[in-house]
């Protein structure tokens, strides 16, 4: 029996001597430990050419932490955000090819780089210079308008009296100029429509016939919103895009027997935003006498016109409290892309 007791004691000692380095659950140090920088934050490739190059960042911390790198173009105002959760920043988790997270596009400019952390007040600043800004597109893009040459008088337009449509600079989403569209300060009292612009195919900046596959064609438009709210807290600006197909290729769009497709959305943001939609996701008009009686086949290669409309809730002139107020949606860089949204290229 004594031997058995000794055996038990020996077994106990054997188990105690077993060391396991793994841990159960997240690291306490990561959750509650102090954050310290073990290796300084550094920009690798601080004179960046994004035509065929990229930039990445390096740093090492004392714990796994949620970090965020914000790159802000000092001229354009464009922003790129790279975020991660790790104790190291390196090429694998911080590679930047020059793309933008928040419009406008970066240009050839100096950029402020800021590293911040979740739940820690520490901030580290650096900078980099973009020598060649990234160009978007894969070579198949078709630009409708970028307003760099001003207003094209061949485009059609209608704006209600007192409403504004003008070309403005600076503050563009791309390049230097953009198109302002806005209502009078109190909106348009008698109509939903603030105004619309017709972009006829023949007068596009690049009047190229689109790919026939609606799953492969994306419409992209930069819109600058100001998120003005109506009295009942609904965004006040409604943006609608209409696409007119000349199905019989006779040079005209017939509202009784040819398709009109559309996409509409509330402009509920501040600043520039790229809206991209796949052609096959567009809705077909349900109005029989306004584009709802065509062949119901989405045919981007037969597009004859794109129309953009800005709308807002009208108000009762006898009751100014019913006023939906100011509406605004500026436009820049209207472009078709193939394969994916333009910002992904």
């Amino acid at each position: 029996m004594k031997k058995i007791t000794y055996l038990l004691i020996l077994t106990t000692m054997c188990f105690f001597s077993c060391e396991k380095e793994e841990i159960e659950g997240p690291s306490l140090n990561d959750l509650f430990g102090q954050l310290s920088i073990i290796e300084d934050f550094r920009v690798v490739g601080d004179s960046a050419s994004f035509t065929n190059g990229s930039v990445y960042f390096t740093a090492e911390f004392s714990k796994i932490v949620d970090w965020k790198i914000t790159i802000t173009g000092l001229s354009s105002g464009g922003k790129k955000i790279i975020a991660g959760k790790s104790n190291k920043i390196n090429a694998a988790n911080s590679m930047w090819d020059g793309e933008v997270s928040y419009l406008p596009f970066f240009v050839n400019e100096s950029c402020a780089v800021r590293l911040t952390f979740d739940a820690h007040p520490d901030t580290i600043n650096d900078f980099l210079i973009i020598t060649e800004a990234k160009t978007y597109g894969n070579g198949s893009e078709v630009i409708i308008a970028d307003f760099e040459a001003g207003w094209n008088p061949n485009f059609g337009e209608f704006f209600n009296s007192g409403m504004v449509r003008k070309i403005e600079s600076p503050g563009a989403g791309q390049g230097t100029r953009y198109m302002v569209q806005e209502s009078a300060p109190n909106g348009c009292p008698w109509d939903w429509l603030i105004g619309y612009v017709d972009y006829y195919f023949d007068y596009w900046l690049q009047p190229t016939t689109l790919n026939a596959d609606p799953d492969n064609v994306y419409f992209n438009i930069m819109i600058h919103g100001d998120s003005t709210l109506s009295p009942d807290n609904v965004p006040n600006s409604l943006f609608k895009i209409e696409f007119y197909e000349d199905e019989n290729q006779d040079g005209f769009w017939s509202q009784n027997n040819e398709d009109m497709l559309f996409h509409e959305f509330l402009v509920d943001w501040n600043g520039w935003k790229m809206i991209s939609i796949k052609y096959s996701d567009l809705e077909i008009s349900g109005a029989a006498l306004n584009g709802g009686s065509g062949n119901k086949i989405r045919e981007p290669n037969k597009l004859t016109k794109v129309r953009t409309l800005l709308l807002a809730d009208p108000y009762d002139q006898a009751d100014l409290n019913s006023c939906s107020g100011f509406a605004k949606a500026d436009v820049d860089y209207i472009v078709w892309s193939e394969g994916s949204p333009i910002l992904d290229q």
Partner: protein
Amino acid sequence: MKKFTIKTILFCTLLPTVSFAQMFQKVWYDGNSRAMFYRDALTGDLKDSDTTSTRSEGEGYTAIDLGMHFTPNEEIEIFSEIRVKNDFGYMWGAGAYVDLRRLSIKGVLNNRVSFNIGDMYLKQTDFTLNNFNQELSKYEPNVFQAYKDLIDYENFYMNNYWRMQGLQSNFSYTFYNSIESVEADLFASRVRGVQWLGEPELLMLGGTSIIKLENNISIGVNYVNSFEVQSSSLDTATYYNPVTNLQLKYKKRAGGLKYFLSIDFGGSSRGWNKNNGGADFETSGGFLRGKTKVVAKNFNSTLGFKYISPEFRSAGAQTRRVNFMSVPSSYAYYTNNTILRPVSMMDIITDPNIYNHRLSTSLMQYNILYSAVLPYGEATPNRVGGDMVFNYKNNNSSLLASADIAYFQEVIGQGTTQRRSLVSSGLSLKANIDKLIGFDNKTQLELSIISEGVTRGGDEIESISFNSSLVSAGLSYELFENLKIIGGTKSFTGSGNEVGVQRDEYDQIIGFELLDFNSKENIMLIGLQYNFTKDIYFSLQTNKIDFDDKTSETEKLSLNRIYFMFNMNL
């Protein structure tokens, strides 16, 4: 002649009685009864500062559990227990309840195989199916019996058995060769029924087989499998948890001493089967435990070792009794902010409503303050270490002493490579003073202390230093035959820092909580107890209860309580 005459008369008188008793009786009754009343009154600082709580509150009831045994033949017994309960303060049926408390059918097939259908009590080993005792209950003085009996009875706690519903059967065969006997016990139990749009049905199947060999060796095989039935729910994943425990036991008598050796080892797996095949969060774990025990006339001693892997999971053996997520009965909400009062020692010792009756498929929450070393009983995962227990009694059993000490380490650290070291120890002394000093009136003194300590090295965040202790004392003095005056106290202190774990629904640790403790709790009682028999008694007592968590502005409570209980267990 006189003697002969008396014997003849006695024979003639008693013979019919004895014969009648041998006749088969088809229906017979038994039952238990309880009357309980308590009233709490706020005292201390809270009495002045808390203007939203009542100054006093209480409740009580009378309950009779009437058992009916129907035996249609000698091989079958049908048992039902009906509870009739009436809350104090109601009349004409309001506040009165009639419930079916237990229902079972027992029988024997061919005098070989016994079976039990309906309510049943099940227990296997410490690692497969075991209803381990709640915290702060070790070495509890007998003067707290009135509370303990109430908690055990109302929660169907019988020793360390779980009360379940289902079917159980056992049989044994005796041989006359190297195998002395083979015993088998099988059960199928429904732990959770079907819930409409809810969780799936949870079943548990299990069995034990013990083979006794002629050379004092026995081999036991224990198996339980708790699992959810996929087809009984719209859930996309269903739980399973089979556990196996092999036991080897050996006993020997030598030099006037008895020696026992036992080795337990086995494993578990647990996961969630997905509808479309495969399993989620599957983990496998194992355990090993060895024990030697020496028994002499006046003492016995046990030395043990065990290893439980961090991944070992057993719903039947790790389900806790105290549910710390429950709402206590007395002053559940307190302070001017009407906050929920956390479950404290007072509730663990006196409140039957904070206890759990059903097996849990995940590790239940616990309070490190009261149970830091083995919160999930013997089967607590992530422990390696040893323990030693020593019990002594003198020749006339007037003095009984027990001591135990256990030391464990974590197998792997939680949130760090540093591992906790955990120590628990206890000392208990029971003196029947009347026997010791030849006193006429029965007098019993009980003293005990249990303590726990946790340490962990590392930096400021990793390091842990926590200690708790519970000192208990009880004194009973027989004023008259069967009537005794009782007095007792339990004093708990806990201080230091610890790190609590936060787990998700799959028991994965997803976070930690840095905890500081500086808590002091007391219960003192004094009263009278009249024992008709050991299990039939009434107890009238007054309690003084104090709870003070010095790390919190609000968690303080002082109560005075009057408590009466009549208890009758047949």
